[in-house]
């Protein structure tokens, strides 16, 4: 045995596509593995005599490498590329060997060879289908605390990485005339034909090299050339054509509507030293006019007892390891199957110098000349035999077979000694993508498989994916598909010798004389589902294949049952005694194979996760030590703490400055829309609830906007700049949706109105200067505008200059103080801001943030849409009934306001709340109730929408939406607190300057 464990002990002396001049070393469970460039982890392990690579999901049974491709259910490894580059559940069959890579097996403790969890295998009778639905029912509270965590620890596969992923990922959108999925013979032929006429073609294949089965075909001649020569020449021809993109290592994993295809390209994982700047993976989104699915087929296992031992593989995979990787999966291989392809695999193994026996489970009358041909090579072929089981534990050591003498008559057992078994239970076309495209599958009895039927999208399948297994036919079909997709009528026929063996029998559960209750024949290797489980599910009354799938979990692992589904389906059909098409098939869903989160996220991480919109004075505010808060995508300065100040102190100081002297605020994020045209006033008259026709140029008005359903949608001040030009402002968060709402009405309902809308949100920066000293501060800086109250009253707008920069100067107030909102082109914001700060210094001008702004407006009872409203608040609910014009013929939302529901007396209405404890600031969102002793669930009357400490009032203040609130003025209610309830008094929602005199700053009389 010692020699078997030396490096490359199972490497064949000649052949293969590996590069023997480029040795590669990686580790497997700490042991150094010698490999060659061109190896996968799986081929390298096999070359070193290692089959045992993991423990199974449920029973912790030793498992080996089953396949050579992306359908691998067993050989799932944790791959560590160093420095945070670790991820679990990699299929060893698709990971390319690389120096320094560390592979580890999963789901075992303390070691792969000695795994305590294997006790589950002895307890198998407990773990029949649906076992946890039956077992872990009681007591109910144990599920979350005990059962689920324990099951997860025991049954899990890989462990998710905890470190941040240091790799970069990117994405690309692409368009093409023809997307060919799969670079096997039919895909190559399709791409060759499609690109001939100059069409834009993308050819994607999940493997490192394109060629599919041609990569391990040593006998076929295509048009007189060896298969591999034809492959290389064809690929070179295709790649040299303009407008062709050939993508190896690229898995098409999703087929969505309108030929929108998602695929992931593995860019650097196979590179020893990737150039800096290359992403690890690239997610492609392709819009293809036509898709050709040349996705090949997956081989099925045979269902016999203990068919899951390490060393038991799929026959075509054994052929691939021998021919492509120059690896002998065993020196003494028993082939068992029902397919012509398995005979070819056996013949290849034999010519590689390995000892071969063939067991054909078909009746001798169903076998053809392949039997004689294989015998002529000196191989023992047993026909008409069944398989009773296998021997060995961590590596198969023999196959137990017996002749079938008649129905139910199994003859004497014979154990065929071996170190590998190659099984072939038939072929299943890889129809995953076709099914994702919503095409209809149809059952083709001759090959016992579902094949693509009617298309739902512009695609077609070719080759093995279409159930066509003969190489010549596959090439012809691929070429025809490619030519048609590119819109040409050229035809071509390929000459292939020798012809492909495509015959296949029908394998279900194999006859046995053992106790059926003790036989475990695995179907779904990854989820540990056996024939017995399927039969139990059927006995328990499950008939729909979708129910059987969910009850037994067959096909629900990360491999989505690529190897198992068709066999499982056959077993269900057999158990139900119904034909396969009547049982139907389960739904195929994306992704075809697992996709990394990195690829899906792409560039959208860290700073590129979302655009962060910074207000024009962000940098200034940051330098002042401002604390920011997100408002939609914007970051806004929330408050400006001075040394040692907390938020409470800072906000109180900022509020006090505005009320007593002057404050300055960056209000640039307010949405702005320029409304231009002779019908602009009429347009606004229809959009807002209040009247606009008589607003004179130079004047502003507060406007309230509803949705069609009558609920408050947005609000803001609108200035009439000229007869035909308005400057509309919206809330910060509402800017985009208000413009869309307006455009929608303009384009669909009132296309006769002569009005154009343009977003100017970012054209204008806005500096709010608010407080009794506001005029004194800005007056020296303003040119061409008379700020005297008589000439420039509250709610007026003037166009002029400030600091030599053009301005639209608004006299408006959201604080209740005398104030101005100075609009200047954004690029000039800093200049003007600095000048005002300088000018205001003698007056103690104080920058304030959104928190002070909120508190100041709440003291005056001004609502914030989206905070004090939630999409179910009418103007009357918000105490703004006066804003609704009674005389206008119509406006958006008008009809909804008279629906009976909108007029109920117990609607939630905006009120003020003051707390019995003046220092207590309620939580926003706190529920309001009448009786704290009421039984739970107690009736909730409403909730707190805004809550602040009011420096001006000397007590806390809150706004709330309370059922029938205005009729409750003076009542005591209760608001929830983290520890209980607080008594609150219902008051009018104006806490300060109830008469609203301060906006005039004592400069004028109302």
């Amino acid at each position, binding site marked *: 045995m010692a020699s078997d464990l030396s490096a490359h002990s199972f490497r064949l002396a000649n052949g293969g596509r590996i590069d023997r001049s480029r040795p590669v070393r990686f580790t497997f469970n700490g042991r150094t593995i010698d490999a060659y460039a061109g190896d996968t982890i799986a081929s390298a392990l096999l070359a070193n005599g290692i089959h045992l690579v993991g423990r199974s999901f449920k029973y912790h049974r030793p498992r080996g490498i089953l396949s050579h491709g992306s359908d691998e259910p067993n050989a799932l490894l944790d791959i560590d590329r160093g420095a945070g580059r670790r991820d679990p559940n990699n299929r060893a069959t698709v990971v390319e060997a690389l120096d320094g890579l560390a592979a580890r097996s999963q789901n075992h403790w303390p070691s792969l060879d000695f795994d305590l969890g294997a006790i589950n295998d002895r307890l198998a009778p407990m773990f029949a289908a649906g076992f946890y639905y039956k077992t872990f029912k009681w007591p109910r509270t144990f599920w979350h605390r005990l059962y689920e965590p324990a099951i997860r620890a025991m049954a899990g596969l890989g462990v998710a990485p905890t470190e941040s992923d240091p790799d*970069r990922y990117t994405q690309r959108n692409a368009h093409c005339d023809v997307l060919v999925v799969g670079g096997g013979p039919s895909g190559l032929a399709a791409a060759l034909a499609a690109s001939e006429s100059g069409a834009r073609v993308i050819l994607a294949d999940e493997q490192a090299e394109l060629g599919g089965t041609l990569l391990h075909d040593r006998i076929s001649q295509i048009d007189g050339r060896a298969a591999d020569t034809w492959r290389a020449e064809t690929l070179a021809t295709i790649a040299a054509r303009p407008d062709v993109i050939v993508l190896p290592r690229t898995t098409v994993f999703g087929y969505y509507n309108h030929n929108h295809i998602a695929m992931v390209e593995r860019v650097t994982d196979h590179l020893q030293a990737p150039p800096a700047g290359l992403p690890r993976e690239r997610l492609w989104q392709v819009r293809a006019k036509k898709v050709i699915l040349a996705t090949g087929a997956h081989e099925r296992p045979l269902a016999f007892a203990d068919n899951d031992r390490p060393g038991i593989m799929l026959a075509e995979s054994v052929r691939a390891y021998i021919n492509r990787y120059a690896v002998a999966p065993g020196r003494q291989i028993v082939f068992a199957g029902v397919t012509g392809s398995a005979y070819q695999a056996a013949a290849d193994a034999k010519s590689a110098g390995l000892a071969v026996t063939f067991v054909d489970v078909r009746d001798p009358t169903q076998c053809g000349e392949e039997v004689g041909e294989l015998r002529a090579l000196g191989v023992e072929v047993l026909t008409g035999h069944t398989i009773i089981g296998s021997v060995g534990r961590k590596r198969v050591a023999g196959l137990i077979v017996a002749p079938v003498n008649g129905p139910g008559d199994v003859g004497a057992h014979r154990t065929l000694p071996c170190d590998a078994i190659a099984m072939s239970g038939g072929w299943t076309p890889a129809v995953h993508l076709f099914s994702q495209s919503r095409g209809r599958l149809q059952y083709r009895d001759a090959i016992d498989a579902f094949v693509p039927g009617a298309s739902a999208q512009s695609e077609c399948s070719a080759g093995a994916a279409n159930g066509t297994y003969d190489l010549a036919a596959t090439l012809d079909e691929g070429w025809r598909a490619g030519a048609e997709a590119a819109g040409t009528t050229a035809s071509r026929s390929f000459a292939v010798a020798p012809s492909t063996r495509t015959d296949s029998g029908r394998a279900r559960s194999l006859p046995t004389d053992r106790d059926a209750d003790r036989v475990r024949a695995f179907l779904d290797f990854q989820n540990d589902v056996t024939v017995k489980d399927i039969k139990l599910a059927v006995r328990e009354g499950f008939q729909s294949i979708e129910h059987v799938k969910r009850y037994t979990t067959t096909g629900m692992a990360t491999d989505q049952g690529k190897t198992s589904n068709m066999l499982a389906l056959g077993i269900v059909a057999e158990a139900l005694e119904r034909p396969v098409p009547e049982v139907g098939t389960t739904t195929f869903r994306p992704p075809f194979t697992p996709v990394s989160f990195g690829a899906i996220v*792409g560039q959208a991480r860290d700073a590129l996760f979302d655009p962060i919109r910074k207000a024009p004075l962000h940098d200034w505010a940051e330098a002042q030590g401002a604390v920011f808060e997100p408002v939609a995508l914007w970051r806004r300065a929330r408050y400006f703490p001075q040394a040692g100040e907390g938020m409470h102190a800072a906000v109180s100081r900022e509020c006090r400055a505005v009320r007593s002297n002057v404050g300055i605020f960056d209000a640039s994020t307010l949405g702005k829309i320029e409304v231009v045209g002779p019908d602009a006033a009429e347009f606004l008259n229809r959009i807002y609830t209040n009247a606009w026709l008589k607003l004179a140029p130079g004047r502003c008005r507060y406007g309230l906007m509803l949705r069609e359903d009558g609920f408050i949608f947005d609000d803001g001040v609108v200035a009439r700049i000229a007869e035909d030009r308005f400057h509309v402002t919206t809330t910060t968060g509402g800017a985009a949706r208000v413009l869309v709402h307006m455009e929608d009405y303009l384009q669909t309902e009132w296309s006769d109105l002569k009005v*154009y809308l343009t977003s100017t949100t970012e054209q204008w920066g806005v500096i709010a200067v608010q407080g009794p000293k506001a005029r004194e501060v800005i007056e020296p800086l303003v040119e061409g505008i008379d700020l005297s109250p008589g000439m420039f009253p509250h709610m007026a707008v003037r166009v002029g200059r400030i600091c030599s920069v053009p301005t639209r100067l608004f006299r408006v107030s959201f604080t209740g103080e005398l104030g101005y909102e100075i609009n200047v082109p954004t690029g000039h914001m800093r200049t003007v801001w600095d000048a005002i700060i300088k000018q205001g210094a003698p007056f103690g001008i104080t920058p304030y943030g959104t928190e002070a702004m909120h508190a100041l407006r709440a003291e005056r009872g001004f609502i914030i849409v989206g905070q004090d409203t939630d999409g179910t608040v009418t103007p009357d609910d918000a105490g703004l009934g006066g804003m609704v014009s009674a005389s206008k013929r119509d406006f958006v939302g008008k009809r909804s306001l008279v629906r009976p529901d909108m007029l109920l007396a117990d609607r939630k209405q905006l009120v003020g709340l003051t707390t019995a404890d003046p220092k207590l600031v309620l939580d926003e969102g706190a529920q309001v109730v009448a009786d704290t002793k009421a039984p739970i669930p107690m009736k909730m009357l409403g909730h707190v929408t805004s809550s602040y400490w009011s420096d001006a009032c000397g007590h806390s203040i809150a706004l709330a939406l309370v059922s029938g609130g205005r009729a409750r003025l003076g009542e005591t209610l209760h608001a929830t607190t983290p520890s209980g309830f607080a008594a609150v008094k219902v008051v009018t929602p104006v806490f300060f300057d109830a008469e609203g005199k301060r906006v005039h700053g004592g400069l004028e009389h109302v």
Partner: protein
Amino acid sequence: MSERSAISVSVLGAGATYSLRIAPELVASVREAAGFDLTGSINTAISTGAKIAARLGPDEWLLIGPDGQSNALSDEIGAALAGHFHSLVDVSHRNVGISVAGREASMVLNAGVPIDLGDAAFPAGSATRTVLGKAEIVLMRPDADRVYRVECWRSFAPYVRAFLEETAREFNSQ
């Protein structure tokens, strides 16, 4: 890989930029305003000297002129369109222009732009409103073959620029 050229992503100087809205039947009689050629079909950009007129919709143009001409240009355009109902709004401070140049510029853009930027679908002289990742942009290919101009709103510019620089990395480091 060696034939790959560098991609340059650079923020362009502020232009005098306007959003012009005018009905197609009215513009047909005007054809030109202050040196901006308004005869292009939808999704085209016509460059005349330093001026670009990008037609983004049936009645919508984005006009980009040289910096420092803001007031004079708007007066000139207004004069040319006098008597025809239109809306001319100065968006010079709203927009930021970013140039993406290099042989693989379209691939860099296609990291976040979903539309077809192939030569047949998006030849020189094309312009369209689209998205780049999570930002709305106007994309133009005014004249030079592999030089694209991305116009976005001011506050999105850092994101757009960083996005383009990030996706350009694989073309610039080899």
